[in-house]
């Protein structure tokens, strides 16, 4: 019953692993654990630092030359045209060798798909190549102080002025803002229309010269990884409106639902080392024979294995060419809730009962303090657990929507 990868896919895997071995600079694997989940923010800082290393730049250059940037994009725009299964195998190969899978972040996963699915040919030609080259780095301008989960109610104004659009308002919780030179903004271009019908999706130069002020926001773990952004008549050409004026909601939903089939297949790989580190911590604290601790460790391992099984099932579905199933819809709820509960357990096993932080300037934390704090973000970003549950209840189970009290 176990399907080994078919000849072509097996060769593809061998070829990719071989390519990585031939082209990855020596020492790159030792720089960081490149599989560290972004959600473990303090831990993840080692990845952020390692990205500044010249070996990373060498590797990035090799991937650009080897056409391994955004390889799931069509060949016509410079990608490889890989389907989800090939993309997944590439991700797995990077994990196996422990090299970073060079990602263009929001540009690759949100802006690119929006352009590919809703943009004109001219827009694709203008915006995709700079994403691939790394010249344009995007951040996300969706949430506002008054509109988070209720995204369609955003108030940031977009006013057409000749062949430009002029944007005023405030966005918030913008991650990756420090490196970004572009932002994709959901703004209201028709205040008279019903709330979903008056929005536009615009790519805006993200610079102080364009009248955008960025203020970092300190998070509960002491890291300032996200920002609030103030738009005071920021300008972008009308050409930068994707999918047409007042069609922004559809573009945003298309972008958010873009399938990342590859993610599920590699997810457990980053959580497995975390489990074993926790076993080591429990052992060091003399708690490994404590039955309640053992029960919770077993619970943790079961969850990592469940992610592996789920990944295999996704892979199986990709191989069969089927659409994503129920499992893909519950995946975000699963890992984010798992990480949060693990954090609550892990800090109990921390040195000094989790009471004492490491010495040093700022707010340095231990690995388990970090997990305890940072894991509170996963159930909020990219659709809160409550929004996830609404989606599962309504789209998977077909339960009726709640009556709306506003448009």
């Amino acid at each position: 019953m176990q399907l080994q990868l078919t000849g072509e896919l097996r060769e593809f895997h061998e070829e990719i692993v071989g390519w990585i071995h031939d082209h990855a600079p020596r020492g790159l694997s030792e720089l960081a654990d490149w599989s560290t989940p972004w959600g473990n923010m303090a831990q993840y800082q080692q990845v952020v630092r390692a990205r500044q290393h010249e070996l990373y730049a060498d590797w990035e250059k090799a991937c650009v030359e080897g056409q391994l940037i955004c390889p799931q994009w069509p060949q016509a725009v410079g990608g490889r045209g890989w389907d989800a299964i090939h993309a997944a195998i590439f991700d797995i190969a990077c994990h196996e060798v422990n090299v970073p899978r060079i990602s263009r972040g929001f540009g690759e996963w949100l802006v690119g798909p929006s352009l590919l699915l809703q943009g004109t040919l001219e827009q694709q030609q203008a915006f995709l190549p700079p994403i691939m080259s790394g010249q344009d780095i995007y951040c996300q301008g969706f949430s506002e102080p008054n509109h988070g989960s209720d995204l369609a109610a955003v108030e940031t104004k977009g006013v057409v002025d000749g062949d430009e659009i002029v944007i005023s308002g405030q966005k918030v919780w913008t991650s990756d803002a420090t490196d970004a030179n572009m932002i994709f903004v959901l703004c209201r271009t028709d205040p008279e229309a019903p709330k979903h019908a008056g929005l536009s999706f615009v790519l805006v130069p993200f610079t102080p010269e364009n009248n955008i002020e960025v203020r970092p926001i300190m998070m509960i773990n002491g890291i300032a990884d996200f920002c609030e952004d103030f738009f005071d008549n920021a300008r972008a050409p009308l050409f930068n409106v994707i999918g047409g004026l007042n069609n922004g909601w559809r573009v945003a939903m298309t972008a958010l639902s873009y399938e990342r089939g590859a993610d599920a297949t590699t997810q457990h790989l980053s959580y497995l080392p975390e489990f074993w580190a926790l076993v080591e911590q429990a052992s060091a604290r003399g708690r490994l024979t404590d039955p309640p601790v053992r029960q919770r460790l077993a619970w943790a391992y079961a969850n990592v294995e469940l992610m592996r099984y789920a990944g295999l099932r996704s892979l199986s579905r990709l191989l069969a060419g089927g659409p994503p199933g129920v499992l893909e819809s519950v995946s975000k709820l699963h890992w984010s809730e798992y990480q949060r509960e693990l954090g609550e357990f892990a800090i109990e096993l921390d040195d000094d009962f989790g009471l004492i932080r490491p010495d040093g300037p700022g707010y340095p934390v231990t690995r388990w303090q970090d997990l305890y704090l940072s894991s509170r973000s996963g159930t909020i970003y990219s659709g809160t657990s409550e929004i996830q549950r609404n989606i599962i209840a309504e789209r998977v189970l077909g339960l009726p929507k709640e009556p709306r009290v506003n448009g």
Partner: protein
Amino acid sequence: MAEIAAVNFELADYQRDLVDATRQFLGARASLGQSRKLMTAEPGFDAAVHRQLGSELGLLGLHVPEEHGGAGAGFTEVALALQETGRVLYPGPYLPTIIALELLLQAGDAAALARLGPPLADGSATASVAWAESAGPGRVDHITVTGSQAGGGWVLRGSKRFVINGDTADVLLVSALTPEGPSLFSVSGQASGLTRTRRPTLDQTRSLADVGFADTPAELIGAAGAAARPISAAFDRACAALAAETVGVTDATMELTLGYLKERRQFGRLIGSFQALKHRCADLVLAIELARCAADYTARAIDADNDDITTASAIALSEAALAAQRVAGECIQMHGGIGFTWEHDAHLFFKRARASAALLGSVAGHRERLLQSIGV
């Protein structure tokens, strides 16, 4: 390095046909309504239906090699059939026969398999495994039943508990301690000195018996003292089987619940539109889908003879048992008063869920088994 091997979770056409045929047959001959009727009758199941599971549908010997009267299919197919029997809380000896056949296969005694296998596979006989004592099922370190040689054969002394459909089984496979160590025996349901008592069960759709042996003649299966490995391997597979069955139980419970949420109105709205219920349903979906995934994975791991079958079966059964109990509890709660009545089916699922969380050991026990299987 991670092994790049995709496990095939997609059903082939013949597997879909198997599911459809089983569901259709059970719907006609062994529906949930039938299970309810039989639970207060003797012997608690319809013997004709059980025979048909073997003779007509070929479900009993699915995983038995063809030379022993089986279909030569895999554990994956067995798991599919078990999900269907779970959906209707099938009270007959399907699960115990599957476990008994698995134990026979693991014991690797060709003569015993040739003698016992064919009638079990075609449904003309039923079997159950008597391997539970006070220490719990499938244990080889706490066996108190003894086997000793007498007059050229073997006799057993002692007692076993929680034997599924044990009061009616034609053959019992019994773990016993001999001077050589843990050993496996078959005992005929007609054997002298055998006492069998059907006990009143929390879950009336699953019959359990106490079995006593007083110098009861028995036939040795495999070599004396060689049963530890086959018992432990069969126990993993029994857990995988119960996990698959429990996923079926959970699916049926969730369908019952959802049907009500989409039909019952309060405060002028369908109650399924209330977020307080929707969010809990979403959490149930998460639990169900993960349990299903684990049960499906385990069945395929068994067919591929992976080295993580103990780990996977422990995860599959603990997840399935937890999901089933949670969904059945919510089924009662979301139905309100009607859900607490004898007349409604919710309690049947609630009781089966609890029983399956204990039948092969507790969730805590499976979790401990899991940790030990990974060396922690």
